[in-house]
């Protein structure tokens, strides 16, 4: 079956005073119906730019320099403005990081969910509100009939994020992009939101692109994962495989940074201090052709310095990695 979303060779660059600076380089991935693809990496690695590029919402100074984004076979990047508006909110939608600021403070949540339906389904105001109540129930907001008339400031962060999810899923989109949907929320609420997302996904068969730096969420929610570093995909594969058997030194480093809770006898053999990856992501414009992780990599050898970053090397059906030494590092 053909994938719902196919990102092919996507590159994004920033137009600055000093010319064009690549932000995202040659990213490719597919997401099938009902599946979840996680994009992970630290801040500034291009995760959000990927999301915005797919939605065609890149900020003014950013341009797509190559590639295609196929949504159900249609190239989003070539869609005319009219067609694009028909896609957004309808076939593809997005949840933002900050539920506090992503809802319009002047309209009730019912109006805001209803607006999507009125635009894409041509519903009248009353029908839209009626359905909005149904969606509020679907995202498990108690007393939906009363809350449909609430303004965003009257809701907690978790509830606002549920409202955002209701808005995003109102038109049963093929693709949902969730840009760090839980970063601004309490840990307990985070778990609820992830549960909700995966329940709704089971019902609607929506493909999800989950942008996160929460590896726990990846393990729980994602079928596949792509690890981005400095705008390049350095490892991708099934989430189980990547988490259980990380091959790229950066991914391995990320895994080592995750705290694990060990109780009882197991606690005795656990190292006390958390690992960290020394150094910083190279800033925009300071990224050469060689492996971007090179300055921070404990495994770097001469070939890493002399050669440009290797293309993703397909290891098996479940994993691909971009590292000269991955066979030695993770045999």
């Amino acid at each position, binding site marked *: 079956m053909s994938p719902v979303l196919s990102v092919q060779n996507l590159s994004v660059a920033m137009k600055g005073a000093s010319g064009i600076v690549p932000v995202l380089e040659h990213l490719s991935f597919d997401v099938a119906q009902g599946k979840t693809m996680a994009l992970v990496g630290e801040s500034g690695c291009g995760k959000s730019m990927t999301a915005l590029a797919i939605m065609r919402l890149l900020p003014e100074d950013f341009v797509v320099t190559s590639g295609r984004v196929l949504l159900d076979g249609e190239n989003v990047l070539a869609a005319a403005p009219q067609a694009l508006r028909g896609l957004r909110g309808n076939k593809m939608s997005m949840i933002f990081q900050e539920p506090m600021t992503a809802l319009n403070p002047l309209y009730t949540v019912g109006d805001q969910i209803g607006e999507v339906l009125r*635009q894409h389904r041509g519903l009248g105001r009353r029908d839209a509100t009626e359905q909005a109540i149904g969606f509020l129930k679907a995202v498990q907001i108690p007393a939906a009939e009363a*809350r449909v008339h609430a303004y965003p400031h*009257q809701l907690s962060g978790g*509830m606002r994020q549920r409202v955002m999810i209701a808005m995003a899923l109102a038109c049963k989109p093929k693709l949902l992009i969730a840009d760090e949907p839980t970063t601004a929320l309490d840990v307990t609420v985070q778990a609820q939101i992830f549960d909700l997302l995966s329940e709704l996904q089971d019902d609607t068969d929506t493909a999800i692109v989950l942008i996160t730096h929460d590896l726990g969420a990846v393990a729980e929610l994602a079928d596949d994962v792509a690890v981005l570093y400095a705008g390049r995909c350095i490892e991708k594969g099934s989430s189980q495989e990547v988490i259980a058997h990380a091959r790229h030194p950066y991914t391995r480093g990320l895994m080592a940074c995750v705290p694990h809770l060990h109780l009882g006898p197991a606690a005795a053999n656990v190292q006390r201090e958390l690992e960290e990856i020394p150094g910083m992501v190279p800033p925009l414009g300071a990224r050469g052709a060689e492996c971007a992780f090179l300055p921070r990599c404990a495994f770097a050898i001469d070939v890493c310095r002399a050669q440009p970053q290797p293309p993703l090397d397909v290891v098996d059906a479940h994993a691909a990695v971009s590292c000269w030494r991955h066979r030695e590092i993770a045999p």
Partner: protein
Amino acid sequence: MSTMEAPRAREPSALPSRPAASPLAAMLRQFGRSPAGVIGAIVLLALVLITLLGPTFYGIDPLDLAGAPFTPPGADAWLGTDYLGRDILAGLIYGGRATLTVGGVAAVITIVIGVTVGALAGFFGGAVDTALVKLTEFFQILPSLLFAMVLVTLFGQTLTTITIAIGVVSWPTAARLTRAEFLRLRNLDFVKASRAAGAGNGHLILRVVLPNALPPIIVSATLAIGVAILFEGGLSFLGLGDPNTMSWGLMIGQNRNYVLDSWWTVTFPGAAIFIAVLAISLIGDGINDAINPRLRKRG
């Protein structure tokens, strides 16, 4: 900190106890708590009522020669007569209609042009912004009184021309204000979220960004009425008023040569303008208090 955390912990289970007040209703309630705003609103309402209902109680035509020229205030004419013998009180009542109408309509023109230009510039940015900012600056550097005088001289001394001239020279302030608000708002998440939900530019400008930009625009619209009234007074004072329509400014303008001998001819219309503009400024203050959360009193 504790005051901020306490309600948050309750929030998830707390239901809105009464139907949520819309932001507009909340703003009106807040306005009711501002003494300045309430006083201003009462005074302005009184002025409007006087100009509307006055003729039924005070049946003298403002253009009739009702008595001897320069009759001082007294039993013959409550507020005296002017250099032609026209009744000052009648002039105030009828002139108020013209003056307040000019103020209101000119303010509407100011805001419509200003908000349109500012919204387009702020929302689209780039070349559109550059062009519109240049246009705004061009109008801003013209001496507005001189420019209005030229327009009135060219197109005739009628109330309509005067109103349009005032609107045309006053909009740059509103445009700059609106542009600044749009620049601030257009990159906020909820605007991006609306765009991601498929909203077009027209919807984003009119339904998403503009309502959020309204508070300062409302304040500036209120103040624009006062400015327009003063402007009309200034033009009339310089002899560029509409000689066929009584207005407060015209009364001052026509009697200005006699101010030293017959103080009442200009003092009363002057006071009327002062009171009207003051009332409008107080209303502006009241609205500003009502919509500016940092000035808002707790509780």
